């Protein structure tokens, strides 16, 4: 891989380093903008570990977490991130069953806007839904996952984890294995990691692999063992329950046989290869406990930790203009 010739973010003045109003996806971000968010997150990693001084930079900022799809971990992570920065965090969770039609979606967006939210975090089951809301509101919108489209903060926290553990992202061979077809985590990760010049391989049975995935500059594999050769990072995806029972794969037992990450399989990767999973894990399906809990190799709990830091960085950066931070106003 040739080295990136992008201008370092530090050379750009003030807000020019991140000229976006919303974070709806990794698509549309320049490599130096991704790096900037990662750099910003570093300070929060340290701060969260020390918990010495509390930061109140989002004092008086109203953050609404509007989740139209069930989520525990991501919602909690965004809530903690906002509160650590002093924001007033309000959670709005709408059961998936009661919102089927988008009229409610637009109406909800307009309602949230009328309540003068300062930043809105949205998760929705339809691809593109977050972008739709972003067009209708006056404040920054943060995508916490839309359908099978994007989940940008997940990709950022994964990139941060890799960068901290492996020292660099460029040139790392990252193997992403699982339900690529329905995974927004996979899409955002592919975009972020390829932008930062990683060598990305995706692994899935053909029934769970999107067509034309090569167009996203990754190498597709159906054979997990072959893909693992020389891997620096192995990223497993969660297999959703509704895909397990025959429509896309015959059974979890067969899936585990072909795509489960076991110690024997992991041995094909680099001796120090990192194991990652966005959670929640199906232990014994896509990953065995002995791998998930492998000391020194599994970064799964670290990913959760990086998640809070990355979300703090995103909330901070996106609200800088409205808060009138010097150079950003």
């Amino acid at each position: 891989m040739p080295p990136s010739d992008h201008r370092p973010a530090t050379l750009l003045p003030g807000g020019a380093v991140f000229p976006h109003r919303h974070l709806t996806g990794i698509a549309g971000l320049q490599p130096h903008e991704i790096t900037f968010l990662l750099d910003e997150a570093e300070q929060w990693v340290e701060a969260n570990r020390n918990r010495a001084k509390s930061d109140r930079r989002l004092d008086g900022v109203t953050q609404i977490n509007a989740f139209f799809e069930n989520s525990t971990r991501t919602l909690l992570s965004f809530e903690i991130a906002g509160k650590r920065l002093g924001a007033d965090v309000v959670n709005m969770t709408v059961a998936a069953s009661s919102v089927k039609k988008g009229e409610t979606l637009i109406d909800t967006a307009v309602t949230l806007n009328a309540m003068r939210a300062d930043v809105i975090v949205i998760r929705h089951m339809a691809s593109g839904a977050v972008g739709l809301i972003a067009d209708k509101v006056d404040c920054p919108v943060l995508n916490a996952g839309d359908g099978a489209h994007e989940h940008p903060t997940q990709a950022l926290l994964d990139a941060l984890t890799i960068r901290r553990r492996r020292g660099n992202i460029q040139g790392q061979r990252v193997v992403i294995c699982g339900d690529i077809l329905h995974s927004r985590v996979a899409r955002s990760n592919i975009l972020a990691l390829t932008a930062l010049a990683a060598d990305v391989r995706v692994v899935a049975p053909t029934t769970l692999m999107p067509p034309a995935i090569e167009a996203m500059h990754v190498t597709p594999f159906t054979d997990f063992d072959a893909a693992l050769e020389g891997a620096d990072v192995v990223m497993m995806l969660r297999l959703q329950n509704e895909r397990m029972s025959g429509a896309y794969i015959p059974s979890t037992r067969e899936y585990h046989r072909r795509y489960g990450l076991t110690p024997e399989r992991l041995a094909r990767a680099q001796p120090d290869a990192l194991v990652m999973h966005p959670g929640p894990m199906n232990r014994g399906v896509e990953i065995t406990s002995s791998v998930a809990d492998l000391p020194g190799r599994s970064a799964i709990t670290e990913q959760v930790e990086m998640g809070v830091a990355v979300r703090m960085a995103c909330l901070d950066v996106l609200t800088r203009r409205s808060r009138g931070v010097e150079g950003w106003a």
Partner: protein
Amino acid sequence: MKTLYRNARLVCPATGERDGSLLVEGDRIAATGVVEAPADAAIVDCRGKWLAPAIVDLGVFAVDKAACIAGGIARVGLMPDQSPILDDPGIVQRAAASGKPELWVHPIAAATRELKGIDLAEMAINAEAGARGVATGRGWIADSGVMARVLGYARDLGLAVIAHAEDSGLAANTVATAGETATRLGLPAAPAVAEALAIARDLMLAEQSGARIHFRQVTTAAGFDLIRRAKARGIAVTCGITPAHLLLSDKAVSDFRTFTRLSPPLRDESDRVAALTALADGTINVLCSGHDPRGPEEKRLPFVDAAPGMSGAETLLALSLTAARSADLSLAQVFDRLSRQPAKLMGLDCGTLEAGMAADLVLFDANSPWQIVADAMVARAGNTPFDGLPVEGRVLQTIKGGVRLTA
């Protein structure tokens, strides 16, 4: 009552393009070409503009008079997917009258009861009530046995079967064509072969029964190849297309714009190019608008939740001319696809400028430039994927049965 349209550029699918006059007597064309003005005739000076048979728009989903008048359309073939569904003679009869007096509405009755694809609908009684064909509606009939019986029964009655070509096993719950765009956007997608699969089955069944079959929209290279070969073998098959699939590829979906959500979905660029070839070589018989106005409550939604369809009646002529320039079609050939062939398919005595035909005419300026603006459309809704596109070709006057219509 006689009217002479003089000083016109006459565009006739049957006789070609020439300068001349056209005499209308009552609701019929009396003479075309070099015509002396009868003493009692009103004279309309066409100022050298183009006069062609009015468009016969086969397969619209709404009766939208204003859009049709603005688009040079005097007759529409109305799809059975209405509320209530056109599967009963009373409903068919009411639909047939619903455009009066400005628009001829020719109902296409449902091929199966409630369009469910299970039981045959009353085709003969519905035909007596005014139906000009039967259709599978927006969907495909999944059960091959049912489709075989639909085709056989329609053949007995001399009715054309208008089919939608998308294999429902592959296309169910999808909103896009499998490819790079759908992959990047994370949209549920069906492979393009879903169309050719459906066409292949229906062609075999049509050949077996000898029925006339018309695929309302064919949009893929593989689909056109099947139609081309079937025609060469002598099967009574025709097919149509809308300008959207001639001018846009699935790249247009990239920003989740729901006005580009169509059925069948927009295809790969290679299929679009194949469509232009198929238009040029005569594989495509019919250019239609697929007019399906959808307001914000059905379009201002996430892409997967939005209703498919575009508002196309008033842009049909201009966009057809745009496509015709790429496919190197003459004006007479364009109106063959817009007027004569759809009229023939529905058994109507219109679609050319020959004497004795209904005096359904469109006066237009083939060179007049304008810009499509969704918000300024007269249709019931402005859901066009061509918002902002500069086009050439403007309708000046739509004439139905000798009567000049005003929007």
